């Protein structure tokens, strides 16, 4: 096996740093993070900028991921596009399960709600589209983290996980094991981890390259979603079926 190319490794490290932060990073910050001379980092950035993988903010002079990279990376799907393509299937899931449905994407280590269907009981409910929920305490977030392990690694390596209820999983090793299980089974759940009395079940949505672009799930009171503190199998079936339907809509191979 030929040796690795150092400059590509360094470029990858820069892209990884830029993908992990909400804020833009300057040359000095990147150089500091990587332990490299500023001149070296600047040269790599210039090349990445030339191919469109990073963009420089005019005012601050800082760097961020470029649109070319976002569009090329198959995990990028416009949230509004995802909502449009998923509309009928999300409605069907709400009707079948009798619970509210949300579709989320990962956004800066949190879950951005891109679609919300009310629980079909005509009670007063407010649209939550555009709001953010914690990734480690929701089924949507866990389903997404299980398929984006590099993001999970970053989240888990951060300042510690916030506890919302006694049931919130804040132990990094336990959460990692849980993500392994989720990858294996193809669905995620949480019982009382964000709100004491509520539970959620979710499954990943994939595109034609089998890359996870979002997750769809239901949320409801524990007594309706669970039996003996475990998610009801028929509800898991509805959620995974609807995730497959949306994935098929996005061009994932039928399976």
């Amino acid at each position, binding site marked *: 096996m030929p040796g690795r190319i150092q400059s590509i490794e360094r470029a990858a490290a820069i892209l990884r740093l830029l993908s992990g932060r909400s804020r833009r990073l300057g040359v000095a910050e990147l150089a500091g993070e990587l332990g490299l001379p500023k001149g070296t980092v600047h040269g790599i950035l210039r090349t990445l900028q030339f191919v469109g993988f990073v963009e420089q903010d005019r005012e601050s002079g800082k760097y961020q991921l470029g649109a070319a990279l976002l569009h090329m990376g198959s995990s990028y799907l416009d949230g*509004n*596009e995802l*909502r*449009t393509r998923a509309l*009928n299937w999300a*409605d069907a899931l709400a*009707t079948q399960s009798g619970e509210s449905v949300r579709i989320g994407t990962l956004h800066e280590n949190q879950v951005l709600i891109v679609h919300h269907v009310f629980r079909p009981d005509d009670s007063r409910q407010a649209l939550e589209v555009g709001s953010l929920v914690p990734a480690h305490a929701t089924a949507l977030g866990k389903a997404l983290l299980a398929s984006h392990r590099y993001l999970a690694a970053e989240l888990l390596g951060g300042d510690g996980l916030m506890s919302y209820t006694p049931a919130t999983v804040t132990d990094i090793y336990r959460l990692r094991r849980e993500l392994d299980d989720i990858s294996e089974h193809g669905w995620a759940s949480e019982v009382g981890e964000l709100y004491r009395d509520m539970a959620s079940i979710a499954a990943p949505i994939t595109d034609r390259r089998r890359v996870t672009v979002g997750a769809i799930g239901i949320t409801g009171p524990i007594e309706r979603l669970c039996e003996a503190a475990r998610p009801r199998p028929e509800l898991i079936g509805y959620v995974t079926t609807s995730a497959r339907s949306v994935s098929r809509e996005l061009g994932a191979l039928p399976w």
Partner: protein
Amino acid sequence: MSERYVAAIDQGTASSRCLVFDRRARIVSVAQKEHRHYFPRPGWVEHDPEEIWRNVLEVVDEALAKAELSPADLSALGIANQRETTVLWDRRTGMPVHNAINWEDTRTDQLCRELAGDAGQDRFREKTGLPIATYFSGPKVRWLLDRVPGLRERAEEGEVLFGTIDSWLIWNLCGRHVTDVTNASRTMLMDLNTREWDDELLSAVGVPRAMLPEIRPSAEIYGQAGPPLAGVPVASLLGDQHAALVGQTCFDPGDAKCTYGTGSFFLLNTGEAPARSESGLLSTLGYDLGVGKPTYALEGSIAVTGALVQWFRDNIGLIGSAPEIETLALTVEDNGGCYFVPAFSGLFAPHWRSDARGVIAGLTGYINKGHLARAVLEATTWQTREVMDAMNADSGRSLAELRVDGGMTANNLLMQTLADVLDVPVVRPIVAETVSLGSAYAAGLAVGFWPDLASLEANWHKAAEWLPAMDGAARAKGYRKWKKAVALAVDWLDDDD
């Protein structure tokens, strides 16, 4: 007893679809197939009726196969159809004598001007509820009888038959020559009060009675389908927008729905008597479900709504897909003072100005593509506002909420802006496929699959609701600017255009 189902055929302008519903009005299966459009000359639009019939059989077959059902599992079949599109066929052979003339086709423009004569566009409005326009079927029939040699004689003998798409499909399914009141109300040949073909209209437009289908209610058992549907009762016929009114369960006077697609169609239930419009709306049949009296509606047709987003995508290229307009629009806070009047082929309701053309008003150096995207979306909302105001004026009521459906309801920013601009709550039901659902409802009622209207209303649930959150002064200013932009768009065409 095993579960039973109702199937709905939605024969639309772009495609034919079949949806199968269970008793709780849940979609069990969907199949869809597009058909070809023929454009023999500018402004002419045709379909091949035989292709449409073949596609309908195919999608019914496919929808059943997908859900592993057979025709024996169906309690009834309903038909909803693109309206006004005109088919003429030979009674003996069942073969079309010409391609279907589509509702968008403007070949009868000259003919319509002749029909209007000195009396003007509203010559038949008292009887038909409609202005004289190329949109409606009557003039299309007349055009064919004038232009195809020998056709008029055969039509007078009853050898050549006329029908809108509903009639064409049920003729092929059951061998009966019938239509429903909603489709008949769009021909310009029916008296809206008696719901019968009218001799004065027939002679003025020049269409022989012998070629016309029998007018029936929208829901009853018209007959049993022949093979391959082996005995399934065909039990509803409805124009697509009327089906959507039923699918949204707008059963009470004052209930309204607007379907947002390429164009948008706003229908208001006005109860048991036709409401006359002084404000540029159409008076039309809502539905006649066989239970209770026929229900009338006011309709505001908006020509360009979703089509403007498509134009922005295909002709301007600032977005790669229609949903991306929302992403682009959200890069700015507001429209920056920019207004877009999409009068691409004139303005429909409530203006009915064929001399209008598109305008982007309020441009300054400040305006960027995000503001344009906002203006594109707001065009749909301000056009809806104009129609809502016309509805309120004609009906003497104030709309309490608007029920919406159609593809554009996936656009969250658009729906919020709509609520802001209308100043009423905007509500999306959990089954967005209201055309097919309304067709299934009507058929299901006719065969007793659903007992009554209340059982249908019980199936209606809110999937989303957007509440007005705009300051009144901002709304008033926006509307004032929109009206100024509209004033700039009209009277653009000249005689030599």
